[in-house]
C-alpha cells in the first residue's frame, strides 16, 4: 500500500515561535510581497500560527495553533477545480499542479482552513536574494494558486534514495522543513498507513483531534490539545 503521509502537532509543546513559518519560506521559495500588498492580505505563509485569547485581564489565557494544509482525504479543494490542478496523489497529498492552474481560485474558496494562496503578481526577489532560491522547488508565477506540499521535494528525495538502496523509507527519515526546525519538537511527520510509525502512535493519543472535524474533510493532521497541570493545586 502506498504511504499515507500525515502529521501530528502537539499544541502542548508549541510555543508559537514561528520557526516553522520562516523555515517554510526558505525551503519553498515563498516570496515576500512587501508592506503594501501585505496590507491587502496578500502575504503568503503556507504555515501560520493562529493565536487565540481567552478571558479578560488579568485572567488571560492564550493558545497557539500552527495551521497548514491539512492534506485532507476528502478535500473540498479538489473536486471544485475545473482543470484538475488540485488533485489527490496516491500518497494522500493534496497536490497542486501549477501548470494546470488557471487561477479560478475555487479551491481557495472551498478550503475551510484558508491555507491556499494566490499569486497576484509574479514573485520578485531583489538581486542577489534570488541566489538563495531552492532549485528543488519551482517558483510559482502570476495567476497560480499555491499551498503547503508537505515538502514533497523532500518526500520524493527520500523515496528515491530508499528505492536506490532497495528498502522502504524509514520512519522519521522525512522531515518537512517546519518539522525539522521546530525548537520544541511539537511536530511529527510520518506514514499514517504504518500503524507503528511515530505519527500513527501519537495520533491515537486521547488528546488527539482534527481541526474542524465536523466538516468531514478528513484532514491528515492530528492536533494534540493542550494539557493541564495535574499537580496538587491545593498543596
Amino acid at each position, binding site marked *: 500500500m502506498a504511504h499515507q503521509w500525515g502529521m501530528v502537532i*502537539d499544541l*502542548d*509543546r508549541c*510555543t*508559537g*515561535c*514561528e*520557526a516553522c*513559518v*520562516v*523555515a517554510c519560506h*526558505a*525551503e519553498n521559495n515563498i516570496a*515576500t510581497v512587501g*508592506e503594501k500588498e*501585505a*496590507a491587502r*492580505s496578500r*502575504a503568503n*505563509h503556507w504555515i*501560520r*500560527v*493562529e*493565536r487565540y*485569547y*481567552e*478571558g*479578560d*485581564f*488579568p485572567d*488571560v*489565557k*492564550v*493558545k*497557539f*495553533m500552527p*495551521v497548514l494544509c491539512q492534506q485532507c482525504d476528502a478535500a473540498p479543494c479538489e473536486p471544485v477545480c475545473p482543470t484538475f490542478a488540485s488533485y489527490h496523489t496516491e500518497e494522500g497529498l493534496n497536490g497542486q499542479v501549477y501548470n494546470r492552474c488557471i487561477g479560478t481560485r475555487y479551491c481557495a474558496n472551498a478550503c*475551510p*482552513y*484558508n*491555507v491556499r494562496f494566490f499569486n497576484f503578481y509574479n514573485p520578485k526577489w*531583489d538581486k*542577489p*536574494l*534570488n*541566489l*538563495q532560491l*531552492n*532549485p528543488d522547488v519551482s517558483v510559482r508565477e502570476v495567476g497560480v494558486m499555491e499551498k503547503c506540499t508537505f515538502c514533497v521535494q523532500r518526500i520524493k528525495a527520500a523515496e528515491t534514495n530508499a528505492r536506490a538502496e532497495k528498502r522502504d523509507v524509514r520512519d522519521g527519515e522525512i522531515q518537512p522543513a517546519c518539522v*525539522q*526546525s521546530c*525548537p*520544541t519538537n511539537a511536530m511529527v511527520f510520518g506514514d499514517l498507513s504504518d500503524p507503528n510509525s511515530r505519527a500513527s502512535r501519537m495520533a491515537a493519543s486521547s488528546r488527539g483531534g482534527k481541526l*474542524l472535524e465536523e466538516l468531514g474533510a478528513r484532514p491528515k493532521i492530528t492536533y*494534540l490539545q493542550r*494539557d493541564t*497541570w495535574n*499537580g496538587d*493545586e491545593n*498543596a
Partner: protein
Amino acid sequence: MQRRDFLKITAISGAAATLDACGSPDHQLIRFIPEEDLIPGIATWKPSVCTMCAAGCGLLVRVMEGDAEVVRNGQLGLMQMGLAKKLEGNPAHPINQGKLCPRGHAGLQVTYHPDRIRTPLMRSGARGSGEFKAISWDEAMQHLMAQLSSLHEGRLPGRLVFLTSPLRAQRRNIATTFAGGFKDSQYIEFSFFDEGVVRAANSASFRHDAPPTVELGQSNYIISFGANFLGTWNSPVAQSLGYGAMRQGRAGLRGKFLQFEPRISQTGANADEWVPCAPGSEGALALGIAHVLMQDKLRSAASAGAAGELIEGWAQGLAEYAPEKISAQTGVKAATITRIAHEAAANGPAVALIGDAAAAHTNGLFNTLAVNALNALLGSAGKAGGIQFSPVWNPSNDKTAGAQEASGAEAVRKLAEQIESNANSVGALLIHGANPAFATPAAWKLRRALEKAPLIASFGSFIDETSIFADLILPDHSPLESWVEDAPDSGSLRTVVSVAPPAVLPLHDTRAMPDVLLDLAHRLGGNFAKALPWKTYDEAIQADFAALYKSKGSKDAKTTDDFWSNAQQQGGWWGPQEDAAQGATGAKAASGSVKYAAAEFDGNQSEFPFHLMPFASQMLYDGSLAALPWMQEAPDPMSTAMWGTWVELNPATASKLGIKQADLVEVASRHGSVQAPAMITPGIAPDVVAMPIGQGHENFTRYASNRGANPISILAPMTVAGTDSLAWAATRVKIARVGEGKLVLFGASLREEPPDAKRR
C-alpha cells in the same frame, strides 16, 4: 603565472572582446572560471555558526552550485559557485540539537542582501550624509594605517576606541589585543540586550559571570519573572527544547510553568498561569515567595547558602516581605503568592528565571539577586532542572598592555560625553557589529558626538544609523563567508567551542574583520606583531584549537591535526557530557549587603501615567534584523503584525482615552515622542503600554528605512543601579490619539471558529 590564472585572464579578455561586439552587457555577462568543484544539483551540507543573537547555535548550510553575478577586479561577470540555499540547525551541536529559531533561518538573507556593502567605502560628502565612494582595499588600508600609525606614534592626539557587539573566542581576543596595543585605548562591548544585569547578579550570588543554563526538560516547576525564554532571551532554542520535554517528554509527568509580567510575552502566552505584576516589583515577589517557604518551614534559610545570605534580613525570614505586606505594591494577591510557594516546594526541581524588563528596571540588580536567592532556597541551584552554569572555554591571552575594557550602555554614554567634551580625545573610533546610534536613548546625543569624532571606521555589512557617520567602511564577510569560531557561555552544560570554515565564497569584495586587524597589526609591527603572531584569522583559530586540545584532550583524536579537522567537520568541539561547570570566578559579596530597592521611574505619575514596556521583537530582535525581508514579513506571534511598529493597550485604557484598534497613537516621554498604531489586547495591565523594539530605522537598507517607530529613542537615560546597563523599562509616558493609523496584520484564519476557542 598559474594555469588557473592564465585561464581566467583569457576568459576575461576573450569575453570582453565579445561584449564590445554585442552591445548590452546585461545579457552578455562573461563567465569567470569557477574556483570550486561542485556537482550541479547535488547539495552538500557545511557546518557554520549562527550569529543572529548571542546564543551561538550550530548551523548546517545547504550549499548547491549556482550562477552568481559577481564583480571581480572591477569586472562584472557570472561565476559558477557554491550558494547557500538554506540554514538548518546542526543536529550534532549541543546547544540547538538540529533546531533553529525564525531569526536563525533568516541569517541567509544577510549574505544575499541587495543592500550589502560590496566594496570598501570612503566618505565623500558631509558626515552622516550617507555619501560614499567605492575605493579599493589597498586605498582603504593605507588610509586607515596612516591614521592608526600617527595615533600609535603620538603624532595625533587621542585614544583608540574599539566599539563592538559582544565578541567571543579568538575574534574577541584579536580585537582586544589589537586595541590593547594602543596607549590608553578602550574596548567597549555594546548590545541592547546585553544580560549585564543577570551576569552581575550571578557573579554575586553564584560567582559565575554568565547567564544561567537550565535544563528545563528536567524541571517540574518554572517560575519566570519576565524572561522571554522561549522567544529571545538567553539561549532560546536550547530553552525551547527543554520546555517541550518539560511539557510532554516524560510519561505521566508534566511540569507547571508560571510567568510574572505586566505585559504578556510570547513566552508568557504559554504559561499555565500568567500573573500580571507591577513593573519593577519582581524582586519583592521573589522574596515574598521565599518568605513563605521559610515561614511555613518548607525550606530553611540556611539551605540557600551564600545567595540567600546576601539579602538583608534573610536569616530572620524576610518578615517584611510577607505576602499580605507586599500584595499592594506587587499587585499580586497574598493567597496567590502563598499558593505558588507551596506548589514550588512540593514539585521540585523548581527553577526561577529572570530577564528582559524585570532586570531592566532601575532596581533590576536587586530583582535578579532576589530571584537568585529564591533559586538557592528552592534547592535546585547547581542541580539538574535548576540554575546551572556552562563550562566556558576562553582562548589564552598573553597581551602585554591591555585595552581598558568596558561594556553596557553606560560605556557608550560615557564615550559620547567624552567626545562631546573634547572631540580630539578619541583619535580613532573603530566600530564593529554594534549600532548604538539606533540602540541608545536620543537623550545621550551620541549622534552629535559621532559627527565630531576625528576618524570613524566601520566594519559593517550595511549602512546603518551608526556606520553612516563613518569616514571609512571596511565591509566584513557575512558569517557564512567567513571562518567562524564561538564559545558560548550558556545553553549547554558541555563545553562548546564551535568552529567552521567558510561555507561559501565571498560574494562581494569583503574581508573578515579579524583578518583586517591582523593585517594592520603586521603593518604596525613591534608589539602588535608580537602579540598577534598569526597571519590570518583561521591560523589564529587553529592555534586556539591546538591549545584546546592540549588542555582538554579528546578521545576521538590522536593528534592536534586530527582534533582540528574533526572539529571543522562537525562544526566544533564539545566537552564530555559529565563536564561540570568551571569553578567559581566572581567576587564574593558581603552577606546582608543587598537591601530592598524600589524601582524608580522617569516622569511623574500624574503627567505621565503609563509605564512604557519596550520588548524584544520575535523577528527583529533588537532591530539588527530589521533589514531582512523574511523577518519584516513574518507575522509577530502575539499580534500577527508585519512591516511595522504598534502600541499595545489594555481595552479599558483604550476606551477611556477614546482609542480604537489601529488608531494612530502618540507615545510621549519627557525625552521625546513616537507615533504608532494602537493594538488593543487583553494581555497588558491598564497602566502599561508596550512597544516592540526593532523598527524606526532611518538608514538601514531598503526594507527597514523609514518604517515604524523606535521606542528606544524616547527612553529615559537611566541605568540599572550597580551596573552599566540601561534601565530600559524605567520610562513613564503619556499617550493620546492623534489620528487614523494603519496596522498590517496577517489576517488569514480558519473560516469557522474552533468550538473551544474564542478569537479576537
